[in-house]
């Protein structure tokens, strides 16, 4: 209290100087300079600063990772605070991302992702394209020096005739325009030399048949307690709706490893006091926590890139419904939970998508301009079916309604309560899933 008048004076002064409504919503990074780098012999290129994104150019080489660096950064005068800015940026892999937030004067947060961008070695393969009609996709990894060809149903010997774009002035060791694989495990190499012959890289070409989703055996998780979540890092494939308020999807032991257990719970919305039925979910895509608890699907972003058509999805599953079916209904200004008749049902569904809209796909399970659902399949897991209380393997076929367009994304969703997004379910319903396999 001894400083009370000081605080009052400062508050009055602040009142006189600033209008809350005039505070800027903008905050951005003006400069971002790397001041020290490990390994010390790593070669640094430029730093590219875009809104929400900073890419640091590094020259790829063997044994480069982990890469760590310290930076000095300057932010806009409209920035009030910088949160989660690490003292040292550390990248274990080439696709790792570090995130920090700038807080504008008004309080609006702006996320910034820091990632690495490969610097052209002068002996790089910049792009590989296949002739139209070739039922395959190509991924070039300049960090590893690899070219991965993912073919739908490759018949061996399998020959492709790609158009390869090299670094300016670079030359390739082979002038052959086609590459033939005699079997799925065969690897081909192409040596690329820089125009001044200062650098030479050996590029590895490989072919993949039936591509599986990373971490589809749900062995990899991150965090503990309220931060537990499935590890999305290997390919950024799997997501859950776990957040610091509720953790509906957790690892459980199964068959000597881990499985993903989704549990329907009653969630109390902080401060607003709503009691909402919240189903545990696991899906391909990602989750962004927001305050729209009344429309949980708005926080889920379904779909990951996948360019091959699948015939079905197989998985191991167990389902036990909670004892009492319930529904959240509005009573006055608050949602409360009421018992309703019935037995809870879990659900699994799959969609093969074609996305030709602009920008990144934002799909919440409802129609989006530029998005075509090519095929769909679903399985209902009825809590009344006692055979589901022990593990069984289920194959979920995909029925295609459009086979003219090429797949771009794949959605696989598991939910412990089928109508969870309508606040219906039974507290305690558990859906446990393991070993998801894509069948082509």
């Amino acid at each position, binding site marked *: 209290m001894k400083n009370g008048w000081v605080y009052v004076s400062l508050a009055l002064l602040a009142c006189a100087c600033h209008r809350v409504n005039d505070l800027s919503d903008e905050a951005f990074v003006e400069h971002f300079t790397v001041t020290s780098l490990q390994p010390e012999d790593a070669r640094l290129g430029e730093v590219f600063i875009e809104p929400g994104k900073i890419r640091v150019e590094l020259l790829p080489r063997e044994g480069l990772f982990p890469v760590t660096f310290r930076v000095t950064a300057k932010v806009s005068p409209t920035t009030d605070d910088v949160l989660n800015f690490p003292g040292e940026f550390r990248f274990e892999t080439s696709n790792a991302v570090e995130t920090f937030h700038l*807080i504008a004067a008004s309080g609006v947060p702006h996320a910034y992702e820091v990632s690495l961008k490969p610097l052209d070695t002068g002996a790089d393969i910049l792009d590989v394209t296949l002739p139209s009609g070739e039922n395959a996709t190509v991924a070039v990894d300049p960090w590893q020096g690899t070219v991965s060809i993912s073919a739908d149903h490759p018949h061996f010997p399998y020959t492709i005739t790609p158009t390869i774009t090299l670094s300016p002035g670079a030359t390739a060791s082979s002038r052959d325009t086609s590459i033939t694989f005699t079997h799925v495990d065969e690897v081909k190499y192409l040596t690329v030399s820089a125009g001044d012959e200062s650098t030479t890289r050996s590029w590895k070409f490989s072919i993949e048949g039936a591509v599986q989703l990373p971490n589809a055996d749900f062995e990899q998780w991150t965090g503990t307690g309220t931060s537990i979540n499935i590890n999305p890092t290997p390919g950024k494939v799997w997501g859950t709706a776990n957040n610091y308020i509720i953790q509906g999807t957790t690892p459980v032991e199964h068959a000597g490893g881990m499985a993903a257990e989704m549990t329907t719970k009653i969630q109390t919305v902080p401060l607003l006091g709503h009691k909402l039925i919240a189903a545990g979910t696991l899906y391909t895509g990602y989750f962004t926590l927001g305050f729209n608890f009344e429309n949980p699907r708005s926080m889920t972003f379904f779909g990951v890139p996948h360019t091959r058509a699948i015939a079905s999805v197989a998985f191991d599953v167990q389902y036990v419904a909670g004892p009492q079916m319930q529904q959240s209904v509005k009573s006055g200004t608050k949602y409360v939970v009421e018992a309703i008749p019935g037995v809870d049902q879990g659900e699994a569904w799959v969609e093969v998508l074609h996305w030709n809209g602009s920008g990144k796909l934002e799909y919440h399970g409802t129609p989006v301009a530029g998005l075509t659902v090519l095929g769909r399949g679903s399985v209902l897991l009825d809590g009344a079916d006692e055979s589901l209380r022990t593990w069984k393997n289920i194959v979920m076929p995909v029925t295609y309604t459009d086979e003219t367009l090429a797949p771009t994304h794949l959605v696989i969703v598991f939910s412990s309560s089928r109508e969870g997004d309508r606040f219906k379910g039974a507290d305690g319903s558990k859906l446990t899933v393991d070993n998801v396999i894509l069948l082509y």
Partner: protein
Amino acid sequence: MTKTGYALLASLFVGSVPGAAQPLVNAVTPLVTVGLQVGTDIGGAIPFPLKYLPAIYNPYPHLNLSLGGTVGTAIVRSWSLYAGVVYKTISINADARVKNQKFQDKESVQYFTGSAYMQQRFTLLEMPLYAMYHFDNGHDRVLGGLYYARTLEGIFHIEPRKGFIASRPDTFEAEIPADMEVMRFDSSLDTWNAGLLVGYERQLFTRVCIGLRVSCGFKDIFKRHNAYFDYSMLHARGSVVLSYDLAHFPLKACRVR
């Protein structure tokens, strides 16, 4: 019961607002005065300790008419004692820029940083009891005392408009949406309050006085055991009052019944 006691008891039945205009300084015998008062209040509930005042705070006070009456009696030379009843509405809205504003409910703790719009409105039946000192010039007076207030209606809303929340201070976990729901704390407001008041009055004309008062609650506006915030919210307000001396009697007149 003493004469003064009877006078105070009578004042409870009559009801009034602080600050009757009748100059009592020259009273030779104890008098009971009955006054009417109108006024307006500026203020609301503020965080205590004061270090929790938002860094940037733009208040938009609403002026509402208060009505009431007082009963006073001279007690010793230059001193008189007053009691009253005032019906008043204190209303203020504000834009505030807050940082790591803690909200705690039964199941979680959250810290909000950003811009928020706040609405407070309290309709009170305030019952002040205060002593007044009359300066020898016959026009100026100062007063000090206590008040007790019943909250007839209370509104305390916070609408976060921009910013983010997290489970720990100085971290980011989720941005609040543009259509964030208003947080309503009405049901957590307590039904009573009490505090201190001080003021100054000046006689403008015979029977008419104008006064300035400052009052500060010493009880949190929320019910006990709430833990929404790290701090208490206390009433603090300034009042401008215009009082009219309706009547004054020798004390005997009040003792008839």
